[in-house]
């Protein structure tokens, strides 16, 4: 089994992840069709689009989280550091160690704040107390959470507020120093102030990491993202009033372009609030 490479080979250029003709199926059902996106290194890329357009599905395809869904199947290539993540001999465990994830609903473990952060490093086999202490401090500082919790590291992660929990989850993802961080609507359950904190954090993290975020909030995409991919739904009528729906990538461009002068008429209607 070949290891997932930690660093990019010289040939891979500016792209962190390249999706080539990616199709995702759930069982027999096509969920997303022919997605081609090149995700820029150390930039924030936002996936936007109406509900059911498959943006979360594509995001989860990037670190093989779809493997955990029974019957899910990905066709096409997801190239990371010159390797196809869906190629033979690629271990999803290694993929996820390089490409971390933050979920829609904050999901700290029912353990102490310290143990939440130390979870990842311990998985990798780090046992030294001093080392773990350092990682915990650095990760919490990196997630702007250190000052708020440094005296309660033994407290349960569940005792924190919603916004703090989500930052804890980000700190937990950062603790194993991945290359890419995927965020699946990380602010959808948070109030505006907590959302602002997370957005500031993302702008800070992007100096070190590549970030891909799925969001329902177009203002958020406008505020934080360098690039934006707009997904939409295609449908085909079957007989007896049933239809078949799948998601497609409509337009992918720098955020300013998407919001100010979209090339596609459908993008313009969505940005203008006509549907979605």
């Amino acid at each position: 089994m070949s290891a997932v490479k930690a660093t990019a080979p010289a040939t891979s250029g500016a792209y962190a992840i390249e999706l080539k003709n990616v199709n995702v199926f759930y069982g027999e059902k096509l969920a997303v069709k022919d997605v081609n996106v090149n995700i820029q290194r150390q930039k924030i890329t936002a996936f936007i689009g109406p509900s059911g357009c498959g943006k979360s599905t594509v995001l989860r395809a990037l670190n093989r989280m779809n493997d955990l869904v029974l019957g899910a199947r990905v066709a096409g290539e997801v190239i990371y550091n010159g390797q196809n993540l869906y190629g033979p001999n690629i271990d999803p465990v290694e993929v996820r160690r390089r490409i971390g994830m933050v979920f829609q609903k904050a999901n700290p473990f029912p353990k102490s704040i310290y143990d939440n952060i130390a979870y990842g490093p311990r998985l990798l086999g780090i046992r030294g107390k001093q080392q773990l202490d350092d990682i915990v401090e650095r990760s919490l500082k990196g997630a702007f959470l250190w000052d708020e919790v440094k005296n309660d590291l033994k407290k349960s992660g569940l005792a924190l507020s919603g916004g703090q929990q989500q930052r804890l989850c980000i700190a937990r993802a950062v603790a194993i120093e991945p290359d890419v961080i995927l965020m699946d609507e990380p602010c959808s359950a948070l109030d505006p102030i907590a959302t602002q904190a997370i957005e500031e954090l993302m702008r800070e993290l992007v100096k070190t990491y590549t970030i891909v975020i799925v969001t329902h909030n177009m203002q958020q995409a406008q505020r934080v993202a360098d690039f934006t991919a707009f997904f939409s739904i295609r449908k085909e009528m079957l007989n007896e009033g049933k239809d078949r729906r799948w998601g497609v990538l409509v337009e992918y461009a720098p955020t300013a372009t998407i919001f100010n002068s979209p090339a596609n008429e459908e993008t313009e209607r969505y940005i203008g609030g006509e549907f979605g």
Partner: protein
Amino acid sequence: MTDNTLDTQIDLVRDEGFYQTNLRSRKFRGNLWKNFFLLAIIVAFGALLALFYNIANSAFGYVVEDYAVNPTTLAPDGNLSALREDELIAILLEYQERRLPVYIRDYVFTGDPTQFTTLPVSEVLAGKWYPPETDALTIRDLTPAQQAEVLERNMDQAQMVTLITEQVVDPVVLESYTLVESIFNRPAIEAEFQEEFVEQGATLYFTSWVNLDFLTSPLSNNPAAAGARTAIIGTLLVVIVTICIAFPIGVGAAIYLEEYSDHQEGHFLTRMNRIIETNIRNLAGVPSIIYGLLGLAVFVRTLGGVTGGRTIISASLTMALLILPVIIINAQEALRAVPSSLRDASYGMGATKWQTIYKVVMPSAIPGILTGTILAMSRAIGETAPLIIVGASTFILFDPSSLQSRFTVLPILIYNWTSRPQPEFKNLAASAIIVLLVLLLILNATAIILRQRARKSLAS
């Protein structure tokens, strides 16, 4: 829908009289159900009280006791334990001279009882002390004094006290009264005692049938001397060994079914797993006596060479089979209740499947798994039918000393005692029920404390 019918509907919503009429019947129905639920709890509580009343009524009360030989005539204050060995032997020699060989056979001799009287002393008492120059004689040829000396040199003091209590003092319960009689009808009891028993030299006293002697004495045919020690040890051993077998296997099976057995719809293994799960659920409802028959055929007969036949290990294996479905089903529920967001978080960090199960899923599921184990353990303590089939003894004199010992358990002892003719065994049965209930509470409390600690470590 036309505007017209819509208006009628809205009129009904605005109709205050209609609202008030319905409000009364809504509240009435609510109260009716509330009272029914209250009644249910009263009935349940009443049944519990009746049970406790019944048990306590038999387990405590006045008894009239008589002795073949009053212990106060043997020792100061009747306290035999205070006597020295030679004094105890003197008592035996005085009252039971002719039965001394029997005691040598029961307490000293370890061979085949049928050859006891025919073999020479040197063989009967090989390795033990025996009088010099008597090698060729049989036990019967020894003088009573020599026989007494054999007993004195080869028994310890506690054994002699037990022996004398049973054989010389020989307490007999002449009459026993229930707790209710004892409390509310005391003058009548005393009158009856004065009239019928006092002349024989019997004594009347208030007693708790559950006492230290009851807990520490072995089984006996004499109700005054009978205790439950053998059955208590048997129950504890069977339950503990059962849990040690069933817990790891049950939790392991549940983890496999919940975490590892997922395959795609229509896959051959998916169908296999579904068949297995359905069967486990059905097994939980199979009558326990069927498990007894299975245990008899497999553990007692087929594997008799390993288990030793009708032994503790056979019983424990049978019980383990019986409670496995309960443990598996409850552990599966507990594992299923762990939110998938926690698994996602772990996998998203690059954890392997086993790391996720061991570090995230198990800690969250442990309280639920322990709840299931408590239920299973309670069932194992109370089960009687399968143990009768796999051969728990109704009467044994020796405590189980290993997993391959013969044994009895409290439910069987209770059943045995309630079916005896002497009324005193009813009192003893009630006492054994109290012991069984207390044992159940202690074992459950231990499991509950473990569960609370697991919960706390999740919450803190």
